[in-house]
């Protein structure tokens, strides 16, 4: 058990380095959770829990400096405890959410602490040699690795037996409620995405996306293709509009008394 907990912690650390590095996809619950399922020897169960978490956190994203609830550690702990406690999806969801929120706080501490690294790099740059700053960059990687690996280890090693004991006292309806809640929660993440994207004219495309998905029942990939087409149309229209505005501006310069006819 100790060995498995260590393996899961190391895996979670590496998955987080994907977030801080190449973005291959291991920073997402489905791929992070798959590794945990393999380590614990229950791939199928791991996939089901990881997929539920993936959908639940579909809208959770790092935007700029914003640190969202940490889905990597959440998924690692959720899948591990879901399998180890025998509680499946419901137990997974129940521990994944608080884990992700706690580690989010740890993440913000690391983002603050790592300010010192860049200061050290600036100081060492005075030597005028290349390669000296590298170690500070790698140290940053280590801080992020540990910031996920340590909490995951503690949660899996100590949490699994505790959750297993608690499971016996939780009524079935509450467990079902957690599964239901996991399907409500994507609304938060998706609303956050929308709050950043809803600019001028965007309600048109919000409605189009809804109609395509809800009535036409198009799969996501088809909606995305249609969206590319609509983006093209929107581009043509706005381009035409800016050109007209430019030429109107030219007219106004030519004869000032005729201007003012347009309410811009």
């Amino acid at each position, binding site marked *: 058990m100790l060995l498995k907990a260590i393996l899961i912690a190391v895996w979670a650390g590496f998955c987080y*380095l994907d977030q*801080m*590095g*190449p*973005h*291959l*996809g291991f920073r*997402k619950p*489905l*791929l992070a959770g798959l590794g945990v399922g393999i380590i614990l020897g229950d791939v199928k169960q791991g*996939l*089901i829990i990881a997929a*539920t978490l*993936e*959908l639940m956190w*579909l*809208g959770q994203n790092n935007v700029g*400096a914003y640190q969202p609830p940490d889905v990597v550690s959440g998924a690692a702990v959720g899948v591990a405890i879901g399998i180890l406690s025998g509680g499946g999806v419901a137990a997974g969801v129940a521990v994944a*959410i608080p884990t992700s929120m706690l580690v989010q706080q740890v993440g913000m501490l690391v983002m603050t602490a*790592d*300010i010192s690294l*860049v200061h050290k790099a*600036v100081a060492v*740059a005075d030597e*005028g040699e*290349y*390669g000296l*700053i590298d170690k500070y*960059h790698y140290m*940053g*990687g280590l801080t992020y690795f540990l910031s996920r690996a340590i909490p995951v280890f503690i949660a899996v090693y100590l949490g699994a037996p505790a959750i297993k004991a608690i499971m016996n006292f939780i*009524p079935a309806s509450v467990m079902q*409620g*957690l599964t*239901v*809640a996991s*399907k*409500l*929660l994507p*609304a938060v993440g*998706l*609303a956050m*995405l*929308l*709050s*950043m994207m809803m*600019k001028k004219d*965007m309600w048109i*495309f919000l409605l189009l*996306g*809804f109609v*395509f998905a*809800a009535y036409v029942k198009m799969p996501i990939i088809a*909606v*995305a293709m249609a*969206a590319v087409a*609509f*983006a093209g149309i*929107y581009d043509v229209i706005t*381009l035409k509009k800016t050109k007209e505005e430019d030429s109107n501006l030219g007219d106004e310069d030519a004869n000032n008394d005729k201007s003012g006819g347009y309410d811009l």
Partner: protein
Amino acid sequence: MDKSADISVKEESKITKSDINKVLLRAQLNQFSHNYERMQSLGFTYAMEPVLKKMYKDRPKKEKVNSLKRHLQFFNSHPTLIPFILGVTIAMEENTEEDEKDSVLAVRTALMGPLAGIGDSLLNFTWFPIAGSIGAAFALKGSILGPILMFLIINALYFPLKYYGIHLGYSKGKDLLNSGVGKSILDRVTNAANVIGVMVVSALVVNTVSVNLNLSIGSGKSQIVVQSMLDSIIPSLLPVGLTFFCYWFIKKYEGKHIVPLILGILVLGVLLTVLGILK
């Protein structure tokens, strides 16, 4: 920037394709030292080092120091589009005199904002959720195909964006920016990315948020199941309603209090299920 034409680059310090690939490889670790003050600046400098080392090989120490400090200034963009910025920056470094280096930083800074926006709406908000929802659909049935598909979908787009991004950025980026068309293209791509993002997220609300009422009116043959009645009028009405509520909440509190919102929905979901209202 116009002076760049009359600079002859020495043969030995010329940047080769393999130098650029080295930068690309190092750029894969670009957020390792991410922090609140200068964000990805150390990562950016770390990636630039092989090229800087070559360019400044026979230059005075002061210029080497400056080259490092210049790139250690604030930088933040989308990890997948950073290779493009690196490509343009390498080209700028190569084609500017030591007293024109401000323009390198100016271009780098001008690019990072718009590309971060495009990356967020096209990649984070659109491509990853698409890959995730397709992968999850298979994985929910316990199929290993789910994560494999997800990995392939993501990288089928991400790999070329990084690889061609840095090489095109190096070879064409500077011309594009100098021509004046660049800025308007960035604006147009940003708008288009936003349209795609909104449509996909809207469809994701329908596909992934699920609220099922467990209520029915009457009994026996005349029983009306409320959920199917709702579905026949406006499908996904409740998920959309819930999402709008969250949207309103986020706007009202300007993105604060997200944790109470999540916990509130969690508790409410469990409570309503226990009471038999949701299933």
